[in-house]
């Protein structure tokens, strides 16, 4: 039986790696992929807690997280295609049309 803390440690390390990708990479596609990685590390935590607490709600939450992630990716990639069509760049720092 693998202890719960190992799963939590794996989730934490994947989360930190994903956060590093979001904060440090310049290519907006890789930033989106790292975001997926962070969401998945949270899913690991939810399923692990669901197993060790013998409570199915963690798995239900994971299903909803997966649904919302699928929506987010579809809309984000559509926005990205439009931005690249208008601005011809994939760099995070140069996409500042809204002066953010």
């Amino acid at each position, binding site marked *: *039986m693998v*202890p*719960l*803390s*190992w*799963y*939590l*440690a*794996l989730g*934490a*390390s*994947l*989360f*930190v*790696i*994903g*956060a*590093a*990708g979001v*904060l*440090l*990479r*310049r*290519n907006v*596609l*890789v930033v*989106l*992929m*790292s975001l*997926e*990685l962070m969401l*998945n590390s949270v899913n690991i935590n939810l*399923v692990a807690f*669901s*197993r*060790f*607490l*013998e409570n*199915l*709600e963690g*798995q*239900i939450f994971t*299903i*909803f997280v*997966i*649904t*919302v*992630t*699928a*929506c987010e*990716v*579809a*809309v984000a*990639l*559509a*926005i990205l*295609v439009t931005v690249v*069509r208008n601005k011809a760049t*994939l*760099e995070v720092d140069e996409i500042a049309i809204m002066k953010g």
Partner: protein
Amino acid sequence: METAFFLLFAGIAALSALMVVVARNPVHSALSLMVCFIQIAALFVLLGSPFLAVIQIFVYVGAVMVLFLFVIMMLDVRKDVHVRFRTSGVPALTVLILLGGEMLVLLLSSEHIPALSTAGEGAAGSVKELSLTLFADYLLPFEIASVVLLVALIGAVVLARREAE
């Protein structure tokens, strides 16, 4: 045996996650992300939730990654290959080290987590129980999720469509 499999899957998952962040070519990032998702699906099997493992492979590996690869191949990504990381990385690195350290301290200092590790030996529940919980207790969130999917579908089509001349 289970420990060996966990270490194998977790090791490959962490390595491929690192590859996602450091890879020069976005296609390589996407492929290593796919490897990472498959390892996470295997971990879901180890955790006794085969349904979520199948969903993970269907949605992430089947749909999301194919979408990513399509967009990568639609756009010209060669220009960005030279410089991978942003120039001012010091504040971001500080935040990351603080975040990782905080998680590690919380994990190691918690008294509840070791107690949980011995308590839950039983199976987490079958697909039948999962679907009963989903469609009985969480019916409204389920319907809202379907509306969210529809909105995302329409939104993506409208956003990506070329304007009529």
